[in-house]
């Protein structure tokens, strides 16, 4: 039995989380794991949202905040405040399985799991598979790609370059 308050909470969370990422519109903010909390201050009143950036300097964070506000207002929320929080830091492990699947389907190799802090980009040895042909024979072109969260790689089998959502 779901109470009215619980249902309201679920709706608000779903509405805020359904906003597509401005730079990777194939995934939603919920799938990316950046919406930390959605809280209604009083029934039918102001809604507070806590949002965390993927990278500290992520320029998309302001667009995300504006988009969340618009989405909630469209569902009749009278007032929305979006606050950016840094702690605990976002990790690529926060991306949902569905988010990973959608990234791969759009040609972006998803991050490998278990991105433990303090163990850096270097010691990781799991192969990164080409999202186009599935080959594990891929090599790094650049650690930084079109956005801070991606690296640029090339497939040695099909020769296609592709983005890799790098572990953080």
């Amino acid at each position: 039995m779901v109470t009215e308050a619980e249902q309201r909470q679920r709706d608000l969370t779903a509405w805020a989380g359904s906003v597509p990422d401005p730079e990777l519109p194939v995934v939603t903010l919920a799938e990316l794991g950046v919406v930390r909390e959605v809280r209604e201050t009083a029934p039918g009143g102001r809604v507070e949202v806590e949002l965390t950036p993927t990278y500290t300097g992520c320029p998309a964070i302001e667009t995300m905040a504006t988009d969340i506000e618009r989405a909630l207002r469209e569902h009749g929320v009278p007032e929305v405040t979006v606050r950016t929080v840094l702690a605990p830091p976002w990790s690529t492990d926060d991306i949902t399985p569905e988010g990973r699947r959608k990234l791969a389907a759009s040609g972006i190799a998803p991050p490998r799991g278990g991105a433990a802090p303090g163990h850096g980009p270097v010691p990781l040895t799991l192969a990164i598979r080409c999202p186009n042909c599935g080959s594990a024979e891929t090599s790094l072109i650049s650690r930084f790609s079109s956005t801070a969260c991606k690296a640029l790689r090339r497939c040695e089998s099909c020769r296609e370059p592709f983005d890799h959502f790098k572990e953080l």
Partner: protein
Amino acid sequence: MTRSDARAPYGAGPLDSPLLPLADDALVLSHRLGEWAGHAPVLEEELALANIALDLLGHARALYSELGDEDELAYLREERAFRNCQLVEQANGDFARTMIRQLFFSAYQELLYTQLAALGHPLATKAVKECEYHRDHAEHWTLRLGDGTEESHARAQRATDSLWRFTGELFLPLGPGGPGGTPELDGPDLVGAVDWDALRRSWTDRVTGVLDAATLTVPTTEQHGAWAAGAGRQGLHTEPFGRMLAEMQHLHRSHPGASW
């Protein structure tokens, strides 16, 4: 004029926080790296340097927001009120010089932020993983340039030799007793709890290891100039900084409150 007289006059407030030097380091280096836009040797590096600059700008903004109004702190302070180390304000020079500067600074920032993260500072906790990527990038380029052609080796060695004298300043304690803060104003004294000797040892191990592997000679010269030890942390800067600051602040000062 004695060293303590040389310190820029300032009152209580954000300018006394030991976090300010860290914010200034990040902002100034971010601006320097941004100067590569349109000039980097290959497109991939253009993106890499812009991405690193963006991370650093994020660090600076988060730290300034803890201290006060970020625009005011970034755009409306005079040169003498900036507490960044002199290393980060040095002109980009050639690509090798930028990469050696990156190596020296990113190794320092990662080690310092690792300590601050262990003490519970939220920005440091968030930023330390980004710093790892910056350091990794600089290390790969140092190896490639140092152990590359005769020309790239010579340029990397020249950069190492000329920037070495700015590295001693990195290990001057910030916080109580250090040039960046005063005991009564430090508040929750995270920065004061940093083990600066350990930081220096780890940095030296890391950096000399990379220079060795890159077939570069580790300088045996002093890690500070005769006149400049710790001067950036006290608000004294080298000649290129004034020009950089003028360019960085010009738009904001010419059009106060402008938005687009």
